[in-house]
């Protein structure tokens, strides 16, 4: 059977499964809709968190980024996993004990102020929207390449599916679909990795395989370093970023991960505090399976790519090369007219550009794996993109229906009314996300990584200080968040969109890239919060009691209505 037939079959089966789960687990109350009724088991929550977390970026782009960046790609590996340690140790248990529905809920109550709540809602919406647009784009990419439908039609199909289970099932529907989506995506990621690992190194475990030897007894990593040196690329295991920048980017990604509202909110869905800790552990374990495999795939596909195309006659390139060329994601420009592909580090002589995002999708084809494996990867990419999109849409819709409408605009709204509002805002959010998927503004690609900087600069200090200090008051927290997010927005727009006079790499402050600047903005947020709190009145007694209370795990009860 052809790749396309296989893809239709596998995508059809998985989509039917997701819709079936959505119908079975639809939400009947706001508590169902926001936190899945608060009764999800830690294991299921761990699986759902892993799927929620691993987006199109993790599944489709990350191995490709590492493949092209070598050691530089480590920032994503450490950053996107290390954040879970912060989450499990510093945030999740306490936020669960606090027991509300959303992150702005915590900020608003802990800092006894609707100003703090509005700032939090603004940050949550900003972070979630920049992130969700990238997911819809990922859906479109998979559809257009493997099902040969128009990229916009692909986005529309994805929208309808997400709309169906997010609007119907809320958090409850999303949680159980995400459990299924994790299984699909991890299977789809591991099968080709194992195949290729056996093919190239004779070892079925990719994590060990990429430290192994090829058929000539040469260590794979040494061979790759050698190839990179010959072709004039930066050595694979050393990379080209400065140590300082690697440090700051890793820190920004870690802290940003811990501050992402769609991840935090997952820990509101379990029964008790101990379960929140436990599900963070499960989540990281499930994430680690993919994250430790990705660098192996990166090495395999990089070696394969160079060996397949470098210095080969263009006329004899394999079929996958031509297929990707038609999507514009591989471009060959025979500058010296010799009919051969010169793929080298020197940009003025290099004749081949390969979009990093295609490495995972093209990898099975490059390695000549059977058609069903290639189709499986397509289904896995869709699972990854859809599960993350759904989680983000829920944050957007609950920010509107719960934090804005119920808590600020119309507190008298009935439970039923709030549920309707939640569903309506989910519909609007899906349409907006779809619009950005079809008409991607230039900033999407640039800002998905920056969403982490924004989360690091705004939420993380406010939440951590709110738990670990009784002295931090609303003046301090609000000032910290506002200064943090504005500073981050300023630096990001200055160097990414050329606002405020723009600037180049040489103008970066202390040589820190915009991706790593979230760390600086976070530190500034911490300092501003602490200093301003010191010079203003201590928080009221009730608030200090809340803080005392969230530090003790017992007495959590059901996630209560309020």
């Amino acid at each position, binding site marked *: 059977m052809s790749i396309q037939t296989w893809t239709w079959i596998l995508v059809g089966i998985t989509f039917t499964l997701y819709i079936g789960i959505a119908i079975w687990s639809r939400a009947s109350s706001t508590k169902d809709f926001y936190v899945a009724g608060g009764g999800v088991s830690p294991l299921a929550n761990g699986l759902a968190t892993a799927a929620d977390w691993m987006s199109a970026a993790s599944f489709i782009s990350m191995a490709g980024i*590492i493949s092209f960046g070598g*050691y530089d*790609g*480590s920032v994503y*590996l*450490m950053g996107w*996993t*290390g954040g*879970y*340690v912060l989450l*499990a*140790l*510093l945030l999740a*248990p306490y936020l669960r004990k606090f027991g509300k529905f959303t992150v702005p809920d915590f900020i608003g109550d802990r800092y006894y102020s609707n100003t703090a709540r509005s700032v939090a809602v603004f940050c949550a919406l900003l972070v979630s929207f920049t992130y969700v647009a990238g997911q819809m784009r990922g859906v479109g990419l998979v559809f257009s390449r493997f099902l040969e439908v128009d990229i916009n039609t692909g986005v529309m199909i994805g929208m309808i599916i997400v709309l169906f289970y997010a609007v119907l099932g809320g958090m409850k529907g999303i949680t159980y679909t995400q459990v299924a989506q994790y299984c699909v995506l991890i299977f789809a990621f591991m099968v080709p990795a194992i195949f290729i690992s056996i093919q190239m190194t004779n070892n079925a475990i990719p*994590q060990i395989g*990429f*430290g*192994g*030897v090829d058929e000539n007894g040469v*260590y*794979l*990593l*040494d061979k790759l370093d050698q190839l990179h040196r010959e072709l004039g690329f930066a050595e694979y*295991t*050393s990379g080209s970023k400065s*140590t300082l920048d*690697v*440090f700051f980017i*890793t*820190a920004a990604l*870690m802290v940003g991960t811990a501050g992402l509202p769609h991840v935090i909110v997952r820990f509101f869905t379990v029964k*008790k*505090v*101990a379960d929140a*800790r*436990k599900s*963070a*552990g499960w989540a*990281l*374990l499930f994430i*680690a399976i993919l*994250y*430790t495999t990705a*660098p192996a795939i990166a090495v395999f596909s990089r070696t394969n790519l160079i060996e397949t195309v470098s210095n080969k006659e263009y006329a004899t390139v394999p079929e996958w090369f031509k297929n990707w060329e038609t999507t514009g994601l591989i471009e060959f420009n025979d500058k010296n007219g010799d009919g051969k592909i010169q793929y080298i580090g020197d940009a003025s002589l290099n004749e081949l550009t390969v979009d990093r995002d295609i490495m995972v999708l093209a990898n099975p084809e490059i390695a000549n794996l059977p058609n069903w494996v290639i189709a499986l990867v397509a289904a896995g990419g869709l699972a990854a993109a859809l599960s993350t999109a759904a989680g983000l849409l829920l944050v957007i819709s609950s920010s509107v229906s719960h934090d804005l409408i119920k808590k600020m605009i119309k507190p008298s709204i009935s439970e039923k009314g709030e549920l309707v509002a939640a569903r309506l805002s989910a519909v609007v959010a899906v349409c907006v996300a779809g619009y950005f998927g079809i008409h991607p503004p230039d900033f999407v690609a640039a800002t998905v990584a920056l969403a982490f900087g924004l989360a690091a600069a705004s939420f993380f200090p406010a939440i951590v200080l709110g738990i670990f200090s009784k002295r931090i008051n609303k003046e301090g927290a609000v000032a910290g968040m506002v200064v943090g997010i504005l500073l981050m927005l300023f630096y990001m727009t200055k160097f990414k969109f050329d606002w405020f006079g723009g600037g180049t790499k040489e103008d970066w402050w202390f040589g820190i890239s915009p991706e790593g600047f979230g760390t600086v903005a976070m530190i500034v947020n911490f300092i501003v919060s602490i200093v301003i709190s010191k010079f203003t009145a201590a928080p009221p007694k009730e608030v200090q009691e809340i803080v*005392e209370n969230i*530090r*003790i*795990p*017992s007495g*959590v009860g059901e996630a209560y209505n309020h």
Partner: protein
Amino acid sequence: MKSYWKTNLRYLLILLIIWFLVSFGAGILFRESLDTIRIGGFKLGFWFAQQGSIYVFVILIFAYIKLMNTLDKKHGYNEDTND
């Protein structure tokens, strides 16, 4: 309550020091010197950055779960004991 919180903070401090050492330490700041040591095909610093730190992160969280469950029990803060 006081001693519970103090012990918790001590656990956090120790675990976060390890967290920092394996990632920012071994994977970034000391990578180049660690890279002179090799385990099979891996340079050690590179291995910590792309594999080792992640394994340690997982272990850290499960260690914290274990430590805190014991501590909760000791202070009578554990809820149902059915798991």
